């Protein structure tokens, strides 16, 4: 069986043409990337807002987790049937596929974003406010960089889920590596089916590696842990209670904690 799969993957005939691996790779990446970008465009601002204001956590968290429970395949076919009288061409299959992928990708990005922002140590937030930063600057200059590791892990989870689930697009006649899985099953061509699964897994690993690299490049060393815990992370309850008083001495305190940890 493994030999068959390797044989299938190394057959030059499978590396060109409309049904070739490069074509389906491009389609698969395109479906997944589009879904993650759209999901991030929805979930990031919403997550930052919820995390920053602390409002709506309950409603949005419940909703986001509810979205995860939706059966993708059923939803996909429902959307195709609902939309097919109104849209012509391939869009009638692409749009529902993207909708279900976005619905899958939004919850991990959303929850990790607001959790990341909410988990920023209150002392740090207070310090920023104490320095006279506006709410927006606190969000972009302090909360966002601090939340970035968790936020990016949400993006990674969403990307993996999209790449794995983009296979359903093939169920409604589109391309991508799902084509091999769906066709292989229907044609009783199991090497083709297994090769499709291997390709999806391979793509997911590569995408994950790229996102880890992105994480390395974008997350501040101070947050990523090279300097240990960020300032004021421990005993946040006590610190929060004292925050008003501490605000005045913040520059001093920050210096102190740097010295302690380094």
């Amino acid at each position, binding site marked *: 069986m493994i030999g068959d799969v390797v044989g299938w993957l190394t057959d030059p005939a499978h590396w060109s043409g409309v049904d070739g691996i490069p074509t389906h790779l491009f389609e698969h990446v395109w479906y997944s990337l589009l879904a993650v970008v759209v999901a991030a465009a929805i979930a990031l601002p919403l997550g930052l807002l919820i995390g920053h204001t602390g409002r709506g956590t309950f409603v949005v968290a419940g909703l986001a987790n509810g979205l995860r429970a939706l059966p993708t395949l059923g939803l996909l*076919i429902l959307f*195709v049937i609902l939309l097919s009288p109104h849209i012509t061409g391939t869009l009638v299959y692409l749009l529902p596929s993207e909708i279900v992928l976005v619905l899958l990708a939004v919850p991990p990005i959303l929850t990790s974003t607001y959790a990341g922002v909410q988990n920023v140590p209150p002392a740090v937030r207070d310090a920023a406010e104490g320095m006279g930063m506006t709410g927006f600057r606190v969000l972009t200059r302090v909360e966002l960089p601090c939340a970035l590791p968790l936020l990016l892990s949400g993006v990674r989870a969403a990307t993996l889920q999209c790449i794995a689930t983009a296979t359903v697009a093939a169920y409604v006649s589109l391309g991508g590596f799902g084509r091999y899985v769906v066709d292989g099953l229907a044609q009783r061509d199991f090497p083709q089916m297994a090769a499709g699964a291997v390709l999806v897994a391979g793509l997911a690993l590569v995408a994950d590696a790229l996102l880890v690299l992105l994480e390395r490049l974008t997350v501040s060393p101070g947050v990523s842990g090279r300097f240990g815990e960020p300032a004021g992370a421990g005993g946040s309850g006590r610190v929060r209670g004292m925050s008003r008083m501490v605000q005045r001495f913040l520059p001093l305190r920050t210096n102190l904690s740097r010295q302690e940890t380094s």
Partner: protein
Amino acid sequence: MKQYRALGGLAALALLTLTACGGGSSNPLSTASSAVPASASGSGSAPAGGAGSVTVGSANFPENVLLAEIYAGALKAKGVQVTKKLSIGSRETYIPGLQDGSIDVIPEYSGVLLQYFDKAATAVSSDDVYAALPKALPATLQVLEQSKAEDKDAIVVSKATADKYKLTSIADLAPVAKDLVLGGPPEFKTRPDGVPGLASKYSVTFKEFKALDVGGPLTVNALKNGQVQAADLFSTDSSIVTNGFVVLADPKSLYTAQNVLPLINKAKLTPAITEALNGVSAKLDTPTLTTLLAKVAVDKKEPADVAAEWLKTNGLG
């Protein structure tokens, strides 16, 4: 293999029937009249002279249940005592049941039935398949006359497409298919009677093939809404009636004939049964079956009621 196993299990009955029938049952059209009295008196399981009693079975999908109800209704009308055992399962389950006497008669499809007993069968047209059946069937089983109704793969187009290109047969597609998109199940792309068969037998090559589902909602909706212009559906699909789709004729028999016909345990045959079931087969054709099936599948009527109504209007019930 299956034939031998079944014969082994039913050696006594098979022997009786074989001796009773002698050599006169090779012609399918003559079996009904010549073999019946012999086997009836030989086995003794059917009351000689009476209308007889049978158990009607069916496979586990709506169309076959409906056909079984039609058979049951027609048999009752001729005074035959009928017991129903419907929705039994697949062919692998009910054929042994037919041979061991759990059921006596079941609606079957000629092509797949022939294939079941003769894996190497090559007959494709209705007449050839029907002619090949008696030789392939075990000696205990017999088919009566076949109806014109068929449930098989069909290339279907929308009314608009059919009118635009004046399509009545798959062959008419040859000059215009390059502008059309075909939809069907994923395996249709490589199946010998799928895309490759259309090309080799009819020189029909579509612009594109869209892999959808097996005669399901995706294919029907795509054809209805113009995402595809032609599709592979089952010839008795109720959506053909409800959407006014046009089934293209298959003059070169790309798809093996699947005529509906009764498969019966020979020992149970009586003239009344033969008359009742052949009466049904004479009146049944594909559009009729499709319309009746739509009443079950779309209007959610009881198969027994649909069957009774049709039998009545055709003077069979």
